[in-house]
């Protein structure tokens, strides 16, 4: 009797190719995940920026980490959407009746999320450079930034997977990301938390976005990162693991 061979990585590669095609063929995805954060960055820098006191002379430098997180948070809404649509249509049933690795279709979406968010992050950084963003960070610091952003993306992607797998409507699948997009506004992403009323400030200083933003900002400006990076990593890894467990449970229930 022949043994059942698993080709996890090649199957996942096929799935990745498939959903990357989906992304490049739907313009609205590309627009939402890159143009909106860029527009926001322009707005904040050239319209509000003059009135915002951050203690830095270069507001683009201050703003960029938060903008990147917003871009990722809106990007993963599409992961939930694509996953939901796949579950609705018969294509997942076809995949699951084929001799392929069970979780390859799901991991394909996760990988796609990582790749597509990486692309929009790079595009936004390039625009920021044109707008005057400058960084003294070395290679290691950039790698650390990339690592944090990748972990943040993965953490949110697994949350998106829960939403996409358990939603009962398209709107439901996407709706969960609104609070995530909103979180950076109640953090130190746009203005220092010192300027906020005490209750809001307490929330802002203890939610994940602030530590992630602070860590990235410190890395990019070549300043000591202190504890922020560990708090940021702990948040990302913690959220990722919890969300992963629930997403996998939802996935197993569906297949």
């Amino acid at each position, binding site marked *: *009797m022949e043994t059942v061979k698993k080709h996890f990585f090649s*199957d996942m590669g096929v799935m990745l*190719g498939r959903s990357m095609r989906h992304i490049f063929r739907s313009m609205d995805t590309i627009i939402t995940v890159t143009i909106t954060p860029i527009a926001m960055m322009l707005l904040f820098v050239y319209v509000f920026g003059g009135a915002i006191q951050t203690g830095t002379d270069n507001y683009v430098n201050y703003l960029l980490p938060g903008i990147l997180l917003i871009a990722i948070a809106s990007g993963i809404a599409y992961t939930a959407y694509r996953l939901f649509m796949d579950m609705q249509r*018969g294509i997942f*049933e076809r995949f699951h*009746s084929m*001799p392929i690795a069970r979780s390859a279709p799901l991991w394909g979406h996760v990988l796609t999320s990582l790749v597509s968010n990486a692309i929009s992050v790079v595009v936004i950084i390039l625009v920021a450079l044109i707008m005057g963003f400058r960084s003294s960070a070395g290679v290691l610091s950039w790698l650390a930034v990339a690592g944090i952003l990748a972990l943040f993306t993965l953490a949110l992607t697994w949350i998106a997977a829960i939403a996409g797998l358990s939603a009962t409507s398209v709107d439901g699948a996407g709706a969960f990301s609104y609070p995530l997009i909103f979180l950076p506004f109640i953090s130190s992403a746009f203005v220092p938390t010192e300027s906020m009323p005490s209750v809001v400030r307490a929330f802002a200083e203890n939610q994940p976005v602030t530590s992630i933003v602070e860590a990235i900002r410190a890395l990019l400006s070549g300043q000591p990162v202190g504890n922020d990076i560990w708090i940021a990593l702990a948040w990302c890894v913690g959220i990722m693991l919890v969300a992963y467990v629930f997403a996998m449970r939802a996935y197993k229930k569906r297949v």
Partner: protein
Amino acid sequence: MQNQAIQVKGLQKSYTKLHVLKGVDFEVEKGSIFALLGSNGAGKTTIVKILTTLLKHDGGTAAVNGFDVASRPDHVRQSISLTGQFAAVDEILTGRENLIMIAKLRHLNNPRQVADDLLNRFGLTDAADRRVSTYSGGMRRRLDIAMSLVGKPQLIFLDEPTTGLDPEGRIEVWKTVKELANGGTTVFLTTQYLEEAEQLADRIAILHEGKIIANGTLAELKKLFPPAKVEYVEKQPTLEEIFLAIIGKKEEK
């Protein structure tokens, strides 16, 4: 090797409130065309999903090519392929890309060639590089079936393959099914069209209220029909009449 492609014994399945399958028994011989007939909601798709490892059953046993679907799903998936009731094609990809994707997932050596051959065979060559979202219902169904043939599986499940097709499209699908069976593939199909079962199947089973109420060749089923009444013209019963007669008898009890 045993001769049965599918063996189902005492199969039970309930959804939260609904007891859909109440002890279903049947066997499908290798290389034959087996039609499962039933009205809307009879549980045809439920049986297909259980046999293709997409759904767990509650009781009884089901084996495909000798492998139990519950305990050896990986082995079952090796030899089957499913064309579900609703087209399982990727709308955003082109027809060619869909076929290549499946060929890659089946780890075939030459995905492009496999895709070209199937596009040709199903008359989709001209539309090969268009997105599937621009296809007509019939083209979509043809692509769907073509995708199920990638890698030449031994056993093919077709869940209502001709629902929603025009007569021409239906005849085309019938032709494909007959060709498959001639090539030695076992075909398990479900349908609401009695004529379809009559046209295609070596054996026909009728699923009604959770059980198989009749199972046999067309000739055998025709014998179940009450003797023809004396009329001016003696009329052969159609399968439809047999179906209604059997249901009628059951309900009288």
